[in-house]
C-alpha cells in the first residue's frame, strides 16, 4: 500500500560526493586521513552504493510522523485505536513537512573500524494537500495533491548533495477492507 508513494527520482549520491564527504571528515579525523587514498575511486563507489541503499527509504515513512502531529489526524488515530470501525478521513491542506535523519556509513579497513561518517539528511516536503485515513491506530495516505521534495545531504555544515523531485501517489479506496496484516504502513504510537 504505502509503496505506492514514491519519489519521482530517488535520492542517490555518487562516488565523487562520497569522496568529498570523506575528505571533509578527514579534516577532523586523522584515522580517516591516513587511509583516505584507499577510500577513493572504486572504494568510494562501493560506499556510495551502500549509502544509496540506505537512502532508499519509503517517503511515506518519512512524512507520516509529520502528519501525525496534525491535531485532527492525532485525534482520529487515537479514536481508531480505541474503537473498531470504519476509517476516519482527514484532509490536510497545504503544509510543509521537514524531516531530519542521519545516514551513517560505517567503514572498516583491514578489520579496523574507522570513525563513522555521519551525513545529515534533511527532507523538506511541500505538500499542497493530503487526504489521510485513520484506522486501527494508524494512518494511511488516501490521496496526495501536488507535492515536491527538496532533500539536502550535509556533513557538518558542508552541503554534499541537494536533490529536488516530486512525489507521486496512486489514489486508493480508504474503505476497502484490507486483510489484517502486520505490515501496517505507518503505525503511530499515541499515548492513551
Amino acid at each position: 500500500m504505502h509503496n505506492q508513494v514514491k519519489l519521482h527520482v530517488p535520492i542517490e549520491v555518487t562516488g565523487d560526493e562520497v569522496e568529498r564527504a570523506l575528505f571533509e571528515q578527514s579534516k577532523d579525523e586523522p584515522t580517516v586521513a591516513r587511509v583516505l587514498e584507499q577510500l577513493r575511486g572504486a572504494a568510494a563507489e562501493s560506499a556510495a552504493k551502500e549509502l544509496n541503499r540506505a537512502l532508499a527509504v519509503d517517503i511515506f515513512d518519512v512524512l507520516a510522523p509529520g502528519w501525525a502531529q496534525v491535531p485532527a489526524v492525532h485525534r482520529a488515530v487515537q479514536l481508531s485505536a480505541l474503537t473498531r470501525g470504519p476509517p476516519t478521513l482527514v484532509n490536510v491542506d497545504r503544509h510543509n513537512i521537514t524531516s531530519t535523519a542521519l545516514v551513517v556509513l560505517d567503514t572498516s579497513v583491514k578489520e579496523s573500524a574507522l570513525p563513522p561518517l555521519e551525513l545529515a539528511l534533511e527532507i523538506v516536503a511541500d505538500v499542497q494537500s493530503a487526504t489521510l485515513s485513520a484506522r486501527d491506530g494508524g494512518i494511511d495516505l488516501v490521496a496526495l495533491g501536488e507535492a515536491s521534495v527538496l532533500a539536502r545531504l550535509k556533513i557538518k555544515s558542508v552541503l554534499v548533495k541537494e536533490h529536488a523531485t516530486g512525489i507521486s501517489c496512486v489514489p486508493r479506496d480508504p474503505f476497502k477492507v484490507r486483510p489484517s496484516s502486520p505490515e501496517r504502513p505507518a503505525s503511530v504510537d499515541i499515548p492513551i
Partner: protein
Amino acid sequence: MRDRISWLLSAALLLGATAATAQSLPCTSVSPEVREYVRKRGACRDVKTAPRPRASKQSRSSVSDRPTSAPQKLFVPDVIGRSYANAAGALANFKVERIEAASAAPSGEVLGQDPAPATLDHPGSTVILQVSDGSLATAASMNPVPAPVTAAVASSTTAPATDLASASTAVPMLSQEPAVPSEARGQFPTALSPNAALIFGTGVLLGLLSGALLMRGRLLRRQRAVGEYAPPPTPPQHQQPAVADTGRVSEPGASFQIRFAARFVPVETTIVLAPFPGDDEVSIDESSDRHA
C-alpha cells in the same frame, strides 16, 4: 766522424770475433789503422810482420802442418718459419738434413732446427731441419687451435737472426717449437679456448639467473603494492551484501579489506501547516463520514 764509427765497428768486430774464436785472425782484410790498433791488443796477427813464436823442430813441424788459416765458424741462420727451399738456400754453407713432421703448419714450412739459430758452427756441418708435412692443416683450419699468449714471445725468438744482438737470444729446440700455423704467430688469439668459452658461458648464465631473480623480486614487491591499493579486476557480482542490524555490509571491497555498512537513523520530523492567503488558520477538514 763516419770513418771513426766504421773504425770502431771494425775493431769491435775483430775483437769480438777473436774472443769468440779464441784465435788470432789474419788482418789482411782490415785497414792499416785498425790492424795497428788490434795488433797492440794482440788479437791480430800479421802474416809478414808478426813474430813467430819460437819453437822446437817438433813443434815447428807441427806448426807447419797446421793450416795457416783455420776454418771459420759461421752463425747458423734462423730459418724457422721459412719454407724448406728458402731455408736450404740460407743454409748453403751447411749440410741440410730434412725431417718430416706432422703439423698444422703449411707443408714445407720449417718448424725447428738443430743446432739452434745463431749458433757458431763450422761450414759443412749438418743442420737438421724439421719440416711440416701439412697433414694437420685441414683439421686445424676446421678447429683452429688458439695461439697461446706466449706466441708473441716465441715469434720474437724465432725471428730470423740478422744481427748479432738477435742471434744471441736463445732459440727453442725442435721439441720446444710450438706446432702452430705461421700466420698465428705473434698475433693475439681471436678465438676463445674451450675453457675460456666455458667460463664465459657460465658467467652469462649466472648473470641471466641473477637478473631473473632480481626481476622476480621487483615484480613481487610491485604486485604486493598494487594489491593493497587497487580494486580487484572483477568484483563478484553474485554476492549480495550482508545485512547487519539496520545497515548493510558491503562485500565488494572485501578483497582489499574495506567494508562499508550504511544505515538510516531518523531523528526528527516536524510539520508546518502553511496558512492560505487570507486565512488565519490552516484548513483541516475532518471527515465525519463513518460508515456502518
